[in-house]
């Protein structure tokens, strides 16, 4: 159940976002597109994605440093540390 659920979330994210985006970006017949608006909107969307990716990566690094610090009550020594090999 859990595997199917996660796989379906991944697949939906992979295909639904691009499809919806392509559908909304379709041209309106009989009108000229506003080049300036298209280009700047693309830029703002790309910046949003870039900042989201940056935030996720930075957040992951901060979490790792916090979670795996030596003084964390949940941290356990590795098997090498336990044997005194490290």
């Amino acid at each position, binding site marked *: 159940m*859990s595997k199917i659920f*996660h796989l379906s*979330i*991944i697949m939906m*994210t*992979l295909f639904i*976002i*691009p499809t919806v*985006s*392509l559908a909304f*970006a379709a*041209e309106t017949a009989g009108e*000229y*597109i*506003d*080049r*300036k608006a*298209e*280009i*700047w909107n*693309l830029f703002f*969307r*790309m910046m949003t*994605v870039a900042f*989201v*990716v940056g935030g*996720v990566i930075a957040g*992951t690094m901060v979490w790792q440093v916090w979670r795996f610090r030596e003084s964390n009550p949940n941290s356990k020594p590795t098997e090498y540390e336990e044997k005194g090999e490290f």
Partner: protein
Amino acid sequence: MAHSNWAEWIYLGVVTALLIYVGAEAWNIERIIDHAPEDAEIIKVTAQQWFWSFEHEDGTKEVGELHLKKDHAYKFEIQSKDVVHNFNIPEYVVLLDAIPGRINTVWFSPNEAGEFDIQCREYCGLIHYNMRAKLFVEDI
């Protein structure tokens, strides 16, 4: 050591989805922008050190200024007589190289009447800084 790795799969899925989204979106917008309407009037743009000249479809020629109509589509055929220049209308985000021996095309439709700058955006020699022209968009 056995452990759950669902978080890694979610992470991978989100990153892959974002990359696909970025690629698809950029490709689609580029496709829309490149597609010139069939009724676009062709304007021949010639760059040379250090001025711009324009030729309309009816043969009218202009030097240093360009008169266009609001809400009409125009397709520029850009060429250079000497070195590499770059045809730029900042207000309408039009930007394309003028290369000797080659015709590059870009189209746009001015949706605002007024007076706008045209400039060279590629260093082309001593007077590059002053290789400018005026775009007049008339509301007819």
